[in-house]
């Protein structure tokens, strides 16, 4: 079967994990990987038989402008802003895994529609946003969420220097997604780094204050949402099904844990896995659209 050619900019941890996920995908063909220095990631790409270069986005555009239809940008917010200036004129659909957020937020379980695929680029929010907004959106649809709050606990080893240096950006971006994509009237996102050994799996506690506390409807909505998420993030599971935190109050509480697929990144790094898995899902839908398959 014909595949759509894709590229990766930034062969760091995220980029190398994407290489493995793409190589498994029936609709995507990894064609070019670029970085800005010779690195283990560049070497890995070459070992996989993929053209790889330390000459950055320019190399990719020069050589593959008409071949590559989808690019994953796993550099940094600053890096992406520069890359976007070159990718947009080239008309390459871009999945932005950085916090730059030039394009609209996309969370596959909530808003991956045809319109999203027509954008020049989409932003992947944050790992916490990918893990929590689907549940908030699901609850909001049946129970009208007026306040959402999420607490994401990540293994220390899975939080890279970029996240650590910009933790406010991480919580604020997640919060915006909970409101815009999740549909909460207002929201808060908290993040906790836990250095316990062995490393903890990514854990997300989701609180929703609701106007209509119909727990049967809420539970069904969350169960359905979890199945949708599992279709692209297999390691996503409940640690606690929805409950009312206090039966007298209006706070719905549930806990979702994300175990990674252990591709390049370790199993505990469900946070990195989920954002990559979500990007792959979007790329796959875009590829199907390009290929004209249902």
């Amino acid at each position: 079967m014909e595949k759509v050619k894709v590229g990766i900019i930034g062969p760091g941890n995220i980029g190398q994990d994407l290489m493995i996920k793409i190589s498994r995908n029936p609709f995507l063909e990894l064609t070019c990987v670029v970085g800005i220095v010779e690195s283990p990631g560049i070497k890995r790409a070459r070992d996989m038989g993929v053209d790889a270069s330390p000459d950055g986005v320019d190399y990719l555009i020069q050589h593959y402008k008409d071949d590559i239809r989808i690019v994953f940008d796993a550099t940094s917010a600053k890096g992406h802003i520069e890359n976007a200036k070159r990718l947009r004129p080239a008309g390459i659909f871009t999945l932005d895994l950085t916090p730059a957020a030039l394009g609209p937020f996309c969370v596959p379980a909530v808003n991956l529609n045809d319109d999203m695929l027509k954008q020049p680029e989409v932003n992947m929010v944050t790992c916490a946003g990918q893990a929590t907004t689907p549940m908030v959106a699901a609850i909001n649809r049946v129970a009208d969420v007026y306040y959402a709050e999420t607490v994401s606990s990540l293994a220390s080893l899975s939080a890279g220097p970029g996240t650590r240096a910009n933790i406010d950006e991480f919580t604020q971006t997640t919060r915006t997604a909970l409101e815009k994509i999740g549909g909460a009237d207002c929201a808060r996102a908290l993040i906790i780094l836990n250095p316990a050994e062995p490393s903890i799996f990514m854990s997300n506690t989701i609180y929703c204050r609701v106007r209509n506390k119909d727990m049967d409807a809420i539970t069904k909505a969350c169960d359905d949402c979890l199945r949708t998420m599992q279709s692209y993030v297999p390691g996503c599971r409940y640690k606690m099904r929805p409950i009312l935190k206090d039966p007298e109050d209006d706070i719905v509480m549930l806990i979702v844990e994300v175990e990674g697929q252990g591709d390049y990144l370790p199993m505990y790094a469900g946070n990195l896995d989920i954002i990559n898995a979500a990007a792959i899902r979007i790329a796959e839908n875009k590829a199907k659209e390009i290929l004209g398959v249902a």
Partner: protein
Amino acid sequence: MSIIITDTTLRDGSHSVRHQFSKENIASLVSGMDKAGVSIIEVGHGDGLAGSTCNYGFTKESDTDMVQVAAQTAQNARIAVLLLPGIGTVPDLQKAWDAGARVVRIATHVTEADISHEHIEAARKMGFFTIGFLMMAHRAQPEKVLEEARKMESYGAQVVYATDSAGALLPDGVRQRVALLKEKLSIPVGFHSHNNLGLAIGNSLAAIEAGATYIDGSLGGLGAGAGNTATEMLTTVLERANIPTGIDLFGIMDTATQVLQPIISSLGVTLPKTQDAMMLGYAGVYSSFMLHARRAAERFGVDYRKIIITAGERGAVGGQEDWLYRIAREIAESK
């Protein structure tokens, strides 16, 4: 050498009252502590700025209102806030500055100091006196604590604390951590205790011996778990150790019993009754004198503390409980 005591009744102590201190409560406590000479008073949700959440419990008052009323009340004391990166953000810090906070403690888990970089830098730029707060210090070996403290120092922290959030350190563990920080850093070192093993005061003293110059306390020891070092006891002990704190002992004791206790009683909390016993230690007086002196104080309507101090000054020994009535009578007559 003098010790700067930061009182955290209105921040760590908020945990004990489910963050329900009112603006009026804050004003009266800040007023009492300020008059008693406390130089840094921390206020806010127990989990710091923006801690008011489903996860940690909601505060009665907003962060801004709490800081504002404290800052407006204090004549001399500086108002401090706590910020945990991941919970509070730089914009929250700016609001706290605008409301009158002038000291901030940026707190991370002891191994995660690098998430405090942007907040420490931003705090310095705003003009805050900026303190790095390494929580759960028992979870890391002294060398690791130093490595993380150095990061905070490099970001611009002006003091770094070893924070025994779990009240799990023994005096030796405190000494090792504080001594290493004191030796290797060029900024002052602080220590924050919890009394979960009954070691709050001993650990604070161990920290001071090892070179710490910033120590936390709270009135009556009000705080998470078994609470913190009681500010009044810390004041007492340091007075006995001839280490100046600038805090008036009776003033701080009275703020605990006369201002804090009625407030927390209305919220269903009682402070441990340690002050009368503390005075025995302060004055070096036979322990069985306590109940007798209380009765004498009541009989003649005088201050229990003055009876005990006088008994100590006169060198009363065990068995001379009768002196307490004589002393009480004399104090009553001299009024």
